């Protein structure tokens, strides 16, 4: 299927999950219409296309919705065959890619959430928890350029949007605790599809400050 027409992404600029999909579409060079959703005022289209979760991102391809960011990334890889491949061809490595993308959801997102929601001494403890999670990923990365196999793919796409948040919150000292992961972040950011899909850390920091000010 090489039809670029009729691709819509229901998205939210600040969402790491939406950013994953943006990266995948950009890697494949797929033209699409990006529609920004407002979580406080969801469009009828979003509610129709994702009635189960009512959340972004939703990729609508030729009128049919695909939901859940890691599932959307795999769909993009399977629906558009041009390179680069976003998953390895070897089944064992594909299983690793899926496992680590899922690990990011289960561990990085959960640990990260705790940091954004705490302050002071409690936040320090939560940052340490996140560092422990990142150390596991550091171990998985090892001497490889990317998380699974030799190529940028699903697992990297799942994790890289979080790096902007780490940067925004500073004082995480990723370079010292996880130097290989820090180098991996720079390597990923050199990819045009990644750098043009992610917001600047400053915008994330501003967004978070505004939320805290509004008591959210």
């Amino acid at each position: 299927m090489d039809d670029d027409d009729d691709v819509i992404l229901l998205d939210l600029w600040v969402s790491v999950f939406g950013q994953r999909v943006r990266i995948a579409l950009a890697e494949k060079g797929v033209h699409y219409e990006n529609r920004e959703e407002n979580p406080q005022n969801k469009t009828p289209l979003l509610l129709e296309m994702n009635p189960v979760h009512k959340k972004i991102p939703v990729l609508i391809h030729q009128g049919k919705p695909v939901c859940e960011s890691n599932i959307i990334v795999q769909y993009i890889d399977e629906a558009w065959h041009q390179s680069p491949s976003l998953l390895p061809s070897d089944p064992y490595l594909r299983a690793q890619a899926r496992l680590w993308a899922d690990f990011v959801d289960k561990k990085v997102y959960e640990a990260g959430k705790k940091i954004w929601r705490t302050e002071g001494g409690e936040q320090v403890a939560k940052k340490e928890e996140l560092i422990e999670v990142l150390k596991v990923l550091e171990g998985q990365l090892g001497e490889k350029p990317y998380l699974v196999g030799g190529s940028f793919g699903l697992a990297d796409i799942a994790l890289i949007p979080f790096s902007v948040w780490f940067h925004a919150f500073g004082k995480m000292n990723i370079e010292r605790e996880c130097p290989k992961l820090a180098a991996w972040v720079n390597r990923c950011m050199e990819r045009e599809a990644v750098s043009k899909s992610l917001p600047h850390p400053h915008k994330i920091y501003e967004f978070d400050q505004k939320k805290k000010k509004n008591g959210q």
Partner: protein
Amino acid sequence: MADEVKLHGVTGSPFVCRAVIALNLKGINYEFVAEDFSNKSADLLKYNPVYKKVPVLLHNGNPILESLVIVEYIDEVWKGVPILPQDAYEKAQARFWAKFMDDKCDPAIFKVISSHGEEQAVAEAHEALQFLENELKVKGNKYFGGDNINLVDIAAISIAYWIGAAEEALGIEVLSKHKFPKLTEWSDNYVNCQAVKDSLPPIENLVAFLKKRFSKAE
């Protein structure tokens, strides 16, 4: 060289059962390595240091973790009965519902069982189950996979078998035929598929296991 396939698991786990169904569906010879939660084997901790959980599939010494990842791996490596659809869009839908089972249904079912059918837990489980009931109603098929079982049916084994066992073990009601006619009908068909029948622990064993694990007296 013959493939060496081992599955580390416990018979009381629906997640392990997913892997067993997939292996049986493909007719794969494998060795089941029974684990004990209170005394995990050195192998389990070596192959799954991140989560320390079952199931773990070992294929020629290579570990594959997480039940849905294992099922997809089995489908990609061994031909024969297909578990995932070929079409990219249908595949994405199957993955969506399988993930829904993992993220919403199974935790809700677990809460119902561990709380012995507490009202709020049952209400949340019903909310999750209703989405699946509607999916069956809308598609009008025998299984989530159509005429044959697929990834979603495999993922949903806890609905078809574990809920019934828990209802008997703990004297609660979760999946009434009146409220969930499609899921009830699907369950009856599903547990009678040969590959599934061969994969299920005997009901009396599962009832005893759940009684022991979730008994309020402990």
